[in-house]
């Protein structure tokens, strides 16, 4: 017990090492938040383009570009994309690393979200579409007022899943020397040479975040389901 306490002190208290974790946590949250924003926005736009193409045959060129984007993003690991953005695309500029990470994870998440949203749109019965059109709505109105609200309700669990994955995926930020939560644990580990304490602490923080997030998604789901009855 005495030894455990000693290790706790040297890993977190000495030299204010817990501040690494606090700063890392903030970085992780900031990156995840903005990446989710970009991912959701991109995902919705791409899903609408792709399902419009498959329903009406319009937007051929955009659909083609979206397909390339999805193929490339889903076909390469996110850490490679992160390194490419940092060391190749922004190779010669001294760029804010948080921005690089937000861009990389946002672009990455967009590809996955788009397929989730598209599955939601496709899952809404074709009859809903016809009903909308026969009420006098045009294609855009039908999409916005009838299809998307139903689609969102269907895809909420899958979206929640995607955001949880994204939160944990940001742990590869350390590759571009960004001090996110995982890297913070590594820095402490590099100073104290103790594997147990920093790793368990980092794991517990991620776990707590995911639990809180899951609760939020569940709450949202319940609220949306109220309209079912």
């Amino acid at each position: 017990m005495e030894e455990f306490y000693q290790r706790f002190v040297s890993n977190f208290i000495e030299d204010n090492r817990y501040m690494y974790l606090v700063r890392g946590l903030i970085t992780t949250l900031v990156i995840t938040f903005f990446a989710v924003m970009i991912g959701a926005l991109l995902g919705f736009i791409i899903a609408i383009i792709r399902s419009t193409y498959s329903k009406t045959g319009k937007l051929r060129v955009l659909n083609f570009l979206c397909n390339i984007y999805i193929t490339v993003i889903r076909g390469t690991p996110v850490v490679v994309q992160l390194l490419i953005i940092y060391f190749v695309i922004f190779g010669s500029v001294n760029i804010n690393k948080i921005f690089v990470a937000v861009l990389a994870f946002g672009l990455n998440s967009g590809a996955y979200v788009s397929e989730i949203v598209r599955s939601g749109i496709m899952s809404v019965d074709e009859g809903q579409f016809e009903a909308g059109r026969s009420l006098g709505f045009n294609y855009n109105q039908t999409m916005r007022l009838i299809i998307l609200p139903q689609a969102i309700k269907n895809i909420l669990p899958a979206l929640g899943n995607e955001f949880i994955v994204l939160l944990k995926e940001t742990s590869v930020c350390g590759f571009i020397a960004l001090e996110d939560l995982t890297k913070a644990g590594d820095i402490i580990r590099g100073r104290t040479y103790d594997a147990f304490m920093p790793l368990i602490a980092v794991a517990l923080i991620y776990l707590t975040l995911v639990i809180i997030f899951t609760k939020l998604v569940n709450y949202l789901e319940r609220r949306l389901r109220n309209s079912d009855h």
Partner: protein
Amino acid sequence: MKLKKVMAVVLAGVMMASLAGCSTKSNVKINVIADLKGTTVGVQTGTTGDILVTDDKELGVKTVEHYNKGFEAVQSLIQGKIDAVVIDDQPAKVFVEKNKGLKIIDEEYTSEDYAIGIAKGNTELKDKINAAIAQIKEDGTLQGIIDYYIGNVEGSSPYVKKDVERPNGTLVMATNAEFPPYESIEGNSVVGLDVDMAQAIADILGMDLKVEDMAFDSIIANITTGKSDIGVAGLTDTEDRRQSIDFSDSYYTGRQVIIVKE
């Protein structure tokens, strides 16, 4: 539509904020160690360079950036993302040789004793290794290896594995093969000063040598958990590390140097 508009506004805000955060390429001229005040310095996580720069308040470094690999820190330096890199002198020489426009500051930062890391309390192995180190120092084997890898002495050659009986099992060595000339990957195997020296020691102990390449900051955890018998990776013998592992006698004295742009 409202949701989209809100998101568009938020996004635009993020972009602006992020762009504002991008400073222009730094043009700091660094010629002596004292010039490091207020600069951004890159290090490899967990190395002595990292610990020195982070703890050295007199140095007055503004930010320390922790890279997974030494060469990534050097790459960032080349791209102007950071102002300097603190690293061991021998890898530094290799990096500077291979990249135009870099130089090593002509001032020694600190010197340090490299030693082999061994699990705490394993005095039996430690004594054996110390005896072997003494022997290769005595008979000139170690100097021969140093001559080849560091001195680039003409006519020197890498250590050749001896044809001896190996009845005493396997000696598992943890290393981080990104530190030429101490260790780097050539073809499919890890080569370098540390590997040759470990082979010479294994030959004396009558053991097989197995080299395991891993992240530098995992080496000590590997020794403490018994996954590896020894850690040989230009490991500096420090008081902090002695809390977790034991060290053999020193086999080489290296230096920490600072790489900057010309």
